[in-house]
């Protein structure tokens, strides 16, 4: 039911030519959520951090990087979309949308 994204296009046995895949999340400024920036290949965590910095953090504003082995990410599959997400949008009474956000409160 839940499978990590297969980046090797089915060539799961790419063997020597591909290192393990890591997902990269970068943070634009302190306090902001880390956002998915992409993926890198690396042999271990330290190399993943360095590769992520070289590939994703050289041009934009990045103050923090997280890397996670792709294999450790559990994701919903497209087939789950209905049962998981559908009932939410047509029940207005479940959402706090009748309040005005006070001045100065940052909405991410």
């Amino acid at each position, binding site marked *: 039911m839940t499978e990590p994204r297969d980046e090797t296009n089915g060539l799961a046995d790419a063997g020597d030519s591909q290192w393990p895949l890591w997902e990269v999340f970068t943070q634009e400024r302190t306090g902001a959520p880390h956002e998915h920036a992409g993926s890198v*290949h690396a042999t271990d965590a330290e190399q993943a951090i360095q590769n992520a910095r070289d590939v994703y953090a050289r041009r934009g504003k990045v103050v923090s990087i997280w890397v996670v082995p792709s294999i450790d990410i559990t994701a919903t599959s497209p087939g789950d979309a209905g049962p998981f997400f559908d009932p939410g949008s047509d029940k207005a009474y479940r959402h706090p949308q009748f309040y005005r956000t006070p001045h100065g409160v940052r909405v991410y």
Partner: protein
Amino acid sequence: MGYGQPPDEPETGAGSEAPASVEPLRQSADVVAPSATSHGSADPVVEFLLRLGDDRLVLGHRLSEWCGHAPILEEDIALANIALDCIGHASLLLARAGALEGAGRDEDALAYHRDAVEFRNALLMELPNDDFAFTIARQFLVDAFAFHAFQALAAAPDEDTAGIAAKAHKETTYHLRHSAEWMLRLGDGTAESHVRAQRALERAWPYTGELFAEDAVTRAVAERGWPADVAALRAPWLRTVTDVVTRATLELPDDGFMHHGGRQGRHTEHLGHLLAEMQIVARSHPGATW
């Protein structure tokens, strides 16, 4: 391997000092053409900055040769990033040298319109990349040097140079981290990577002595209050190198014969080819901009 160099030439002997009268380079049509007798600048501070600037320029160029050829995509990007950092340092250092020289040469004139005999980089920088292990070993040895050298240079009496050095030190800290980690992975890796890494270390080692060689230029610059005691950088450099080499399960090569000559403009046969590639566009279209 400098040509025409006697085997035991001492640092203070003939050939290590600038000639008594140095002709300034002649300028023509905004392109600075070298004269037959020009070997460098009469100002030791300019010479000192040219050495460091040429180091970064030649090393940056060597690293850029990996673009499109690195073993894996992420490493291709990493090496290109580091090459750009080095070239950035070169640009700033050469610009400062040109400004202090006061002969109207900017960083482009110095980078693209000097001949090999006028370059002051250490020989270690111009050696061909060979295999990935040699590239990494050379990079590691240079990064360890540059880390300590820029740290010292951040105390230079010239404010611009101090600023350049402080910024370069930050970037070099990352370079050192990158190349040190690769030394660990190659040394403490497979049997093949271990052999290649050890061989790379042995090949590069005889070129490291030049980085710490004192001569008339470094002494003259030190007299002007600059932190130019390059020999004093060897101890912290060796500590950094020994730590990583040991953890990489490699052996520190013995100190033996050390190559010299780059600082005096006596280069290996490799620099000419490197400059031919690096300078061809600028020399074909002098003064062009885009």
